[in-house]
């Protein structure tokens, strides 16, 4: 065999892309909850992923950061146990339970040995439906949140995120950092936290996936055990909001050797028939790996950055196309100009047949590789449910990528990439970079 297989031969092999080989079952519990399940009995543990839609976007304007603080308190005492007893119970079972909070979701990721399924379920149930929220725990976790807010205030990456969010979304919950401000967090009361809990954790917004050593019947019983005591409904979701940052470049002065930049413009909804074209286009522009135009132009050819990428944000209540990179202060102005030129080139010239083919090969080849590991698959399954996909989505997804034609891609490129609406938020002391907006 040749030392190097010629590229043409590789392309021929790839004409038949692999398909994702997961067998997804839908399970309905006796109590009426639905989950997706992949049985995988070769390792004696289960990954259980639970997500509640809404997350930090449910914060009341006068209680910013309440949902974030609440999520940090769920395992600081629950079900009659204090924080130490709860953690000891978890450690005795070698179970992990992690609560995370995002703009749109509150997530519960747990992992337990097969034999500890019921006891672990009881712990998750206690944290979700019977948290203590005792004063000592509130003060302790509040102190942690305040410390992290102070750290964010002097981190150029975080400053850039916050400036962009405010510019794009104003007074909408997306315009604020999910953790709140020092003032708002200092002022939060126990009542605010209880309200945030009632707002966010309810059966009408829950999505569930399990992967591992568990049968459909066992999962049905476990779901009712974990979520059976939750209230039926939570708070109404926030309204939709448009990405509305003023175009141009803003500079936030910050004394540090390397400037940090974020870029953004309006995006595209995942339910839009053109979304797959947009997804491919973004892969070509700034997707992961070294192949994207932005990595080639900004890093590989000019050495202006260590990493640059762009990404489609398909949040529940907005859509955006964003990106980020860092560059020494002396060279930020050159880097911004290169990115602006790439944006213009994409909008005006679109992509080539070769670029489209390469992106399709990458995306269709990479997709089955994502289904690797129980925890990873559970996360993918719950994400698909939240995005409104069917269980057969993994089997059809590559066909949908392959169906995008060059003509479609270039029509969408002209619509999606809007150099005239592109906003750069730069934090640092960039030399010779003129701010054109505030």
């Amino acid at each position: 065999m040749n030392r190097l297989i010629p590229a043409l031969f590789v392309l021929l092999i790839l004409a038949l892309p692999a398909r994702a080989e997961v067998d997804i079952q839908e399970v309905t519990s006796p109590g009426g909850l639905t989950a997706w399940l992949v049985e995988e009995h070769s390792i004696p543990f289960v990954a259980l992923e639970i997500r509640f839609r809404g997350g930090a976007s449910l914060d009341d304007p006068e209680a910013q950061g309440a949902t974030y603080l609440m999520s940090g308190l769920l395992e600081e005492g629950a079900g009659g146990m204090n924080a130490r007893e709860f953690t000891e119970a978890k450690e005795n079972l070698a179970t992990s339970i992690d609560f995370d909070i995002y703009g749109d979701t509150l997530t519960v990721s747990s992992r337990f040995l097969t034999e500890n399924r019921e006891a672990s379920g009881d712990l998750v149930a206690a944290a979700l439906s019977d948290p203590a929220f005792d004063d000592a725990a509130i003060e302790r976790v509040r102190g942690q949140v305040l410390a992290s807010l102070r750290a964010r205030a002097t981190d150029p990456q975080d400053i850039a995120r916050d400036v962009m969010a405010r510019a794009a979304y104003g007074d909408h919950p997306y315009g604020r950092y999910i953790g709140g401000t020092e003032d708002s967090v200092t002022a939060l009361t126990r009542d605010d936290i209880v309200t945030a809990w009632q707002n966010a954790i309810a059966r009408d917004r829950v999505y569930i996936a399990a992967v591992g050593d568990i049968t459909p019947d066992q999962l049905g019983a476990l779901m009712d055990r974990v979520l059976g005591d939750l209230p039926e409904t939570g708070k109404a979701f926030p309204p939709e909001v448009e990405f509305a940052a003023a175009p141009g470049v803003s500079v936030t002065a910050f004394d540090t050797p390397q400037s940090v930049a974020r870029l953004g413009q309006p995006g595209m909804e995942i339910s839009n028939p053109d979304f797959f074209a947009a997804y491919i286009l973004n892969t070509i522009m700034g997707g992961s790996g070294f192949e994207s135009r932005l990595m080639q132009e900004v890093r590989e050819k000019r050495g202006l950055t260590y990493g640059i990428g762009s990404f489609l944000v398909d949040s529940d209540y907005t859509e955006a196309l964003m990106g980020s990179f860092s560059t020494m202060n002396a060279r930020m102005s050159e880097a911004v100009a290169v990115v602006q030129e790439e944006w213009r080139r994409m909008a005006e010239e679109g992509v080539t047949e070769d670029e489209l083919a390469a992106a399709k090969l990458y995306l269709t080849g990479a997709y089955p590789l994502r289904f690797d590991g129980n925890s990873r698959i559970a996360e993918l399954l719950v994400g698909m449910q939240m995005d409104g996909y069917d269980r057969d989505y993994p089997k059809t997804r590559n066909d949908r990528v392959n169906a995008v034609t060059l003509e479609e891609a270039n029509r969408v490129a002209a619509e999606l990439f809007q150099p005239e609406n592109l906003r750069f938020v730069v934090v640092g002391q960039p030399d010779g970079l003129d701010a054109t907006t505030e």
Partner: protein
Amino acid sequence: MKRLIFACLMTFATALPSFSQEVTNTVLDNGMEVVVIEDHRAPVVVHMVWYKIGGADEPLGKSGIAHFLEHLMFKATDDMESGEFSEVVAENGGSDNAFTSYDATAYFQRVASDRLGLMMSMEAERMTDLLLTEDHVATERDVILEERAQRVENRPGALLNEQMSAALFMNHPYGIPLIGWQHEMEGLTREDALSFYRDFYAPNNAVLVVAGDVEPDDVIALAKEHYGPIDANERLSPRARPLEPVPRAPRRVTLTDERVGTPYVMRNYIAPARRSEDQSEAAALVFLSEILGGSSATSVLGQALEFDQKIAVSTWAGYSADMLDLSQFSLGVVPAQDVTLEAAEAALDAEIARFFETGIDPEQFERIKTRIRANDIYAQDSARGLGNRYGRALTTGLTVADVEAWPDVLQSVTPEDVMTVARKVLQPTHSVTGWLMAPDMAEETVQ
């Protein structure tokens, strides 16, 4: 060739289930070690080549060359254009990257398992046939300087880490930053990179780790085909770095920076790492870090400083067992807002002193033991993670047998072992204490 069944949990009588992992290892005629880990759940494979060469093996004055060469390995070879390696991986739906540590440099790709031979053909090509142009070297040097700015210069905490390591290691190159000192990075040349490459990139200095949906016989056949024809480097000498003298004085470092929002105090002690056939001290240190700093609610430091005394918003203890020569044991406290670094450090010292008097809570010890054992089951979920275990071990002086013995060594640790190693390691003269602070705090301290 040796075929081994890795039964990590069989010897324990408790309720935890048993689980076995198939690992095969062999050595090619040219000295390249091969480890194959089977995981047939998904049609995926991780292909990794680990070189036994890292930041601590650099010539004096050339700090950062190991990491710089890692970047340059993605440039042109005899048969590949610059960037072609990653392009072919991407066309095949894979992902690829590389990393450098003090003791190893590793290149890896994650692809569909039927593409393994293609990965090997390209990795073998760049083991011997790297070409570098002055242009590529100059541009990539800008990239690593941007990387240093992003990882270090823009982060006061990373600057403190650099200063602390430089103070802790008086003679060993672990005190030199892995990414390099900025002034030395600026002077790295094409010839520096090529000479490092010619000296150290060779099959007899490399470990091939393949983890995923593969059959060991197939992997070994492919390895013989692609890597087998490469000549061993006969000039390769055993790794011998300058060792540390006996330390005589505790060291202190204070880094003051406008960009510090949350100050903290941390202390690093020089600590032993896993050694071949002698892993028990390292195992005891793994327990010590869990006991002192595991989770806030159950660890010694978390309970005392966060829960009882309420002087800290967070505490930690850290230890990495996989280093060729020496490791560090690290403790840290982020004080509550109205608590000074001085008071936080005093509370940390008091708690360590109390720990030496009261010893270990037997229930906490048993919980940690259970969790460490369960982690071996959870670890089976990631073929890449298992591959990393072997790659790290085999590039830090350990053997496959050591990796397989490690779970048993961990389970045989006693509380007495932990106290013994704690007394040996947690000595002020073996340590550096660092304060990270903002200028206004520095003024308060002066007043």
